[in-house]
């Protein structure tokens, strides 16, 4: 079971210029969870739509178990689960009616669909609202219905774009647990710009920037690549702005009159700085910032 993306490019017209969404991207996806990270506008959603067979790419090939899905998208659609970043529901239908509708679109037999719907509603804690109109669902409940529809046909390839939007911390943890359970026997592509969502569950991380695939490795390997570039420094508030301008500040915590900064830099930023263990977020910021003009990176907490 393998998704093989070869030299994929996608461009579109914007005004007089041709804009590049994806440039010569090659990637192999194997069973397990692939976390696709990248800043907004990196081309993640374009890639997701192409992989979900909705958009045709400008160049390149995609093979699913050896078959070209650009020429024959139906081959993949039967085994695909897709949760787009923005999606809607038929708000006049109940949760169960909507899932029955999607199950029919996916070509599932009624008995299989009914069993699957019941199981997923239970798994996603929606059984109590199964017969309630979707109009009355909260944002998190709608997101869970979206997740349920993606899993209806027990997909071999699951593509999920920013799935944790609208989920509360408990639901996010449950969702991560669910993905981990599912990941043994299928390919899961999880696109996000929230590193914490994939840090603990992804087998592999791909980082995109400006349409390019800039890194593709296991989380530990990515962390290892910046092993001697992570520092911790206690600074006063006057120094904070200067530090943010000069270095990548991946985290800052206020401690009394001081602020503790996590810095990512090729060399020691200050005599007071001490080396620390890198996180995946450090790696992400390090690789993406190298491709941008120097700007401030900080996540205050």
């Amino acid at each position, binding site marked *: 079971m393998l998704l093989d993306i070869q030299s994929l490019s996608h461009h579109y017209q914007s005004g007089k210029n041709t*804009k590049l969404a994806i440039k010569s991207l090659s990637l192999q996806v194997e069973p397990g969870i692939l976390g696709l990270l990248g800043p907004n506008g990196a081309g993640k959603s374009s890639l997701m739509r192409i992989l*979900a067979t909705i958009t045709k790419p400008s160049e390149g090939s995609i093979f699913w178990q050896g078959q070209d899905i650009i020429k024959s998208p139906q081959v993949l659609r039967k085994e695909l689960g897709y949760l787009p970043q923005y999606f*809607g529901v*038929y708000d006049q239908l109940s949760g169960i009616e909507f899932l*029955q*509708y999607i199950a029919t679109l996916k070509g599932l037999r009624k008995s299989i669909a009914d069993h699957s719907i019941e199981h997923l509603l239970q798994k996603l804690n929606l059984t109590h609202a199964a017969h309630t109109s979707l109009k009355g669902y909260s944002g998190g409940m709608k997101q869970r219905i979206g997740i349920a529809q993606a899993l209806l046909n027990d997909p071999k390839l699951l593509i999920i774009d920013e799935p944790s939007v609208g989920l509360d911390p408990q639901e996010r943890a449950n969702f991560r647990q669910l993905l981990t359970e599912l990941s043994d026997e299928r390919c899961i592509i999880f696109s996000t710009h929230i590193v914490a969502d994939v840090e603990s569950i992804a087998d592999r991380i791909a980082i995109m920037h400006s349409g390019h695939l800039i890194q593709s490795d296991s989380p530990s390997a990515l962390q290892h690549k910046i092993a001697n570039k992570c520092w911790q420094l206690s600074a006063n508030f006057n120094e904070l702005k200067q530090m943010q301008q000069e270095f990548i500040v991946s985290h800052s915590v206020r401690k009394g009159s001081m602020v503790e900064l996590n810095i990512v830099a090729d060399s020691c930023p200050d005599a007071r700085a001490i080396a620390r263990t890198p996180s995946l977020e450090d790696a992400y910021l390090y690789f993406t910032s190298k491709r941008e003009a120097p700007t401030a990176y900080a996540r205050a907490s």
Partner: protein
Amino acid sequence: MTQVWPLISADFKQRTRQQSFVVTLLAMSVLTLLFFPSPDAHYQTLVINGYRGIYNSAWLGVCLAMLNVLFLPIICFYLVKNALELDRQSMTGELIAATPISKQTFLFAKWCSSVLILLSIVLVMLFSSLVIQIYYGESYQINLWALVWPQLVFVLPMLLAIAAIAIMFESISWLKGGLGNVVYFFLWIGSIVQSLESVSGIGALLDNLDLEIAERFPLQQGDTNIGVSISNQANAIKTFVWQGLEPTFVHLWEALPLLFICLTCLVLAFIFFDRFSKNSIPENRRTSWLNFIVKTRLGGHLDIIFAALTQHFAFTRLLRLELKLILKGHSVYWFMGLLILNIIQMFVSQALLVSLVLPISWLCCVLVISQLGQLEKLSNTSELITYSKQSSILQSFACCGAAWILLALASMGSVIRFTGSAEWLLLVQMIVAISFTVSLAYFCGTFTGSKRMFEVLYPALWYIGPIQAALYVDFFGVNSQASWQAGVPYYFVAISISLLMLTISAKSTR
């Protein structure tokens, strides 16, 4: 079919579990009641040679079929032209696009659910006719077959075709929006004439009735009318007992062209439907050189001047921004078309100008001003606007003012001409007509939350009023003297103010 049925069922439920659908059913029921006036009513609808049949099942069945053939195409088209739009707007399309459902199965299911919706309307109308027969009591003999078969033979094929045409319009990118609504309106106008003059279908049935009455009552020669005819003398219309006729193969044969249209439209829909592959963000739109020059360069310079003129007052600043908002995103060819029409307005004869060129210039603005009253909804900014705006009245006036300016710009050639030739009455009428158009658009947009109502209603008024010169609907005053004598401009001023006040008060309370 077992695979398709759940799709039809879900789509049907989504589209009918709306308050607006219940309102539509009630409205159609009322329309049916009005189409069969009581014997002492001061109007009649279907009169042949001065006669109408007594309200028995046969007469009601045929009359209902005629009503449906003439008016359902326009009502039902706009009612079901949301099958694919529903998925695009609700963003369910993204989910559907990634499933293995084939284009033909999906479109077929959508077509079937549209047909079911239309059938439910006809069923309500049939039920209403049954009630009418019992209520008027001109004949208590219920003959369901006589009531139903004209709907099956004349109306059903038409419903199948309307559902297919609607799907086709939604599949073709340039027809799926407001332009398609206007295009269809003119197709309908053409189809009415075709239906009545046709030697087949309802036209032939009407001719048969005409002949039969002429044979039975050779001495009586009265008027023949389909539609609404005002009669000041109650009971002036004579009645007769019509036993009806039976459907023949000829009748069925005559439905074939409609079935052919239906099939053709479904095939075209299949060819053009993009399977929701186009992103809701228009990423593939190319900006032409002409677009760049006219909209960016010329529009930019004009905006600088306008901004300088409007900068001193909050209202004028808002007015400029509202005008920019309604003009954004329109094709450069639309702007050029308006410019050309303005030039034509300067040189054609006055009769042609008032009766045709000016109405056409305004019709070109229908798709722009139909956004009034629901721009916030369309761009999903309602919440931002609600908490930001200081005064909803100020915003309402700015919004209507912007539309007013647009229509005035669309008629600038006429303004110059009327001023030059001191045609002050015409100028006043034009101001009244612009005000009426704007308030109607604002009213329709605010109360229906959709552009469709105005896009349908305005061309209809435009056709009956300025084009057909029906005095009391002619908001434009094509026949200026008669119009002033009848006080029509005063009525339209009153209507405009009422619509505007009603809309503003509704907006303020929201």
